[in-house]
């Protein structure tokens, strides 16, 4: 199995704070890798570090075998990474269409096909095509953010807590969407909702205090009550 993304001993500072203190993480191609850990453990910072939004101070990040840790954010995105932030990052006063156009690389057939694909996957977006992104419901914003990240020809999607603040029915839809997107793209998922994480995740990586402490098959964690209690406070 090839690793699409590999982080080796990554350290990140935010201002003077040493937030990531040795993150090791791999995302095998075609799988959903879940990042787990308590609030404030450093999951969001890990995703932002991958995207170059909080650049790492040391360590290496390889995407498809190429180092990306020194690249500016837009180059990282162009190399094939899509980012769905915790707050969804919707441009509230731009329409759904414009939100998606910000992510479109070009006018090519391939891009048009990707847009068609996400509109089939998320019919609501088509329905509200000319509406402002800010007027969408929480679930629809999540859909738009995922659609947008996918449209820019991403082979890896980084999705931060997509179930946050959503009703259970809507979470079901997000799970379906992730199952579907997985056929097209590798996914790194940060998720606090353990049920959701266990339903969509193939592998897990536990982060605690800015360090990776465990990694393995999702099934292993599901069975391991002690680990769940210790690092996630559940079980």
């Amino acid at each position: 199995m090839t690793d699409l993304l590999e982080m080796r001993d990554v350290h990140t500072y935010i201002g003077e704070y040493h937030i990531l203190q040795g993150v090791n993480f791999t995302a095998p191609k075609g799988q959903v890798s879940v990042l787990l850990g308590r609030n404030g453990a450093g999951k969001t910072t890990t995703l932002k570090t991958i995207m170059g939004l909080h650049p790492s101070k040391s360590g290496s990040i390889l995407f498809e075998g190429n180092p990306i840790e020194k690249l500016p954010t837009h180059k990282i995105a162009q190399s094939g990474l899509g980012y769905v932030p915790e707050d969804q990052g919707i441009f509230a006063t731009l329409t759904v269409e414009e939100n998606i156009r910000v992510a479109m690389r070009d006018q090519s057939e391939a891009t048009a096909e990707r847009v068609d694909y996400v509109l089939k996957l998320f019919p609501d977006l088509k329905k509200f095509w000319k509406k402002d992104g800010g007027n969408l419901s929480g679930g629809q914003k999540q859909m738009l953010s995922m659609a947008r990240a996918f449209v820019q020809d991403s082979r890896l999607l980084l999705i931060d807590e997509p179930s946050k603040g959503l009703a259970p029915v809507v979470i079901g839809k997000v799970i379906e969407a992730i199952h579907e997107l997985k056929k097209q793209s590798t996914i790194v998922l940060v998720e606090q909702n353990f049920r959701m994480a266990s339903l969509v995740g193939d592998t897990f990586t536990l982060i605690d205090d800015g360090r990776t402490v465990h990694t393995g098959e999702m099934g292993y964690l599901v069975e391991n009550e002690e680990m769940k209690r210790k690092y996630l406070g559940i079980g």
Partner: protein
Amino acid sequence: MELLINLLINGLATGMLIFLLAAGLTLIFGLMSVLNFAHGGLFVWGAFAAVWMYATTGSFILAILGAVVTGVILGFVTEKLIITPVYGNHVQQILITLGFMLVLTEMIKVVFGPNQLAAKVPPYLAGSWEVGDVILIKYRMFIILIGFVVFGIIQFILKRTKIGLIVRAGVLNKEMVQALGNNIKQVFLFTFIAGAALAALGGALMAPYSGVVYAEMGLEFGILAFIVVVIGGMGSLPGSLMAAILVGLAGSFMAYYVPALSLAVNMILMALVLIFRPQGLFAAKG
């Protein structure tokens, strides 16, 4: 009636000149939170470039073009040398751009001499039209027209082109714009240069309107433009247009009715906005 219309047109024309200066400022601030106190320096360079070109070539159109080209070149140099090194640091931005403003002002005196220069309205824009009792001064009408045309062009670029879309998105969330694969620095350079060109255009149009150009005029207009950006809402182009017209009209009417207040009125307007609607009348961000 005649008086009212004259005050109105006066105010509108002044407002449009301020708008040309404020347009660049508001987008630059909205997009990158960059405080550029040197913006008025581009205005004054546009004014002097136009006066010089007009005197040399006799063509007002060439004079305007010369001013715009001057703005583009100075804008490029300013962004690369002055602004890029101080991204993200407001204190440094204020200090370095204020310093650069003084440099631009002094350089005017070095290049064009220490005295003010007379600026003439081209013959085909001189004089006035009489409509009934009302006398419409052609050059003022011309400025108002240009102001609306420029506003239309910028709005078109913002609403209908990809780079305009990126600017609008960048004003809302610039991290996300980059995370979606767009080089925001490039877009910012483009915006900065466009803003500089507009400031220079404003200066070029201002010259014949006031009849003279002098090195310090950039400072005066720069401050008005800042007030307009605050009133209109940082990052909002329609906000800047409305606020510029408001400031222009307030200045024109006050100068006639309550001359003692004609300078203070802008400060009062700004203070009121800051107290009751600190995000500005037309805030771009929610």
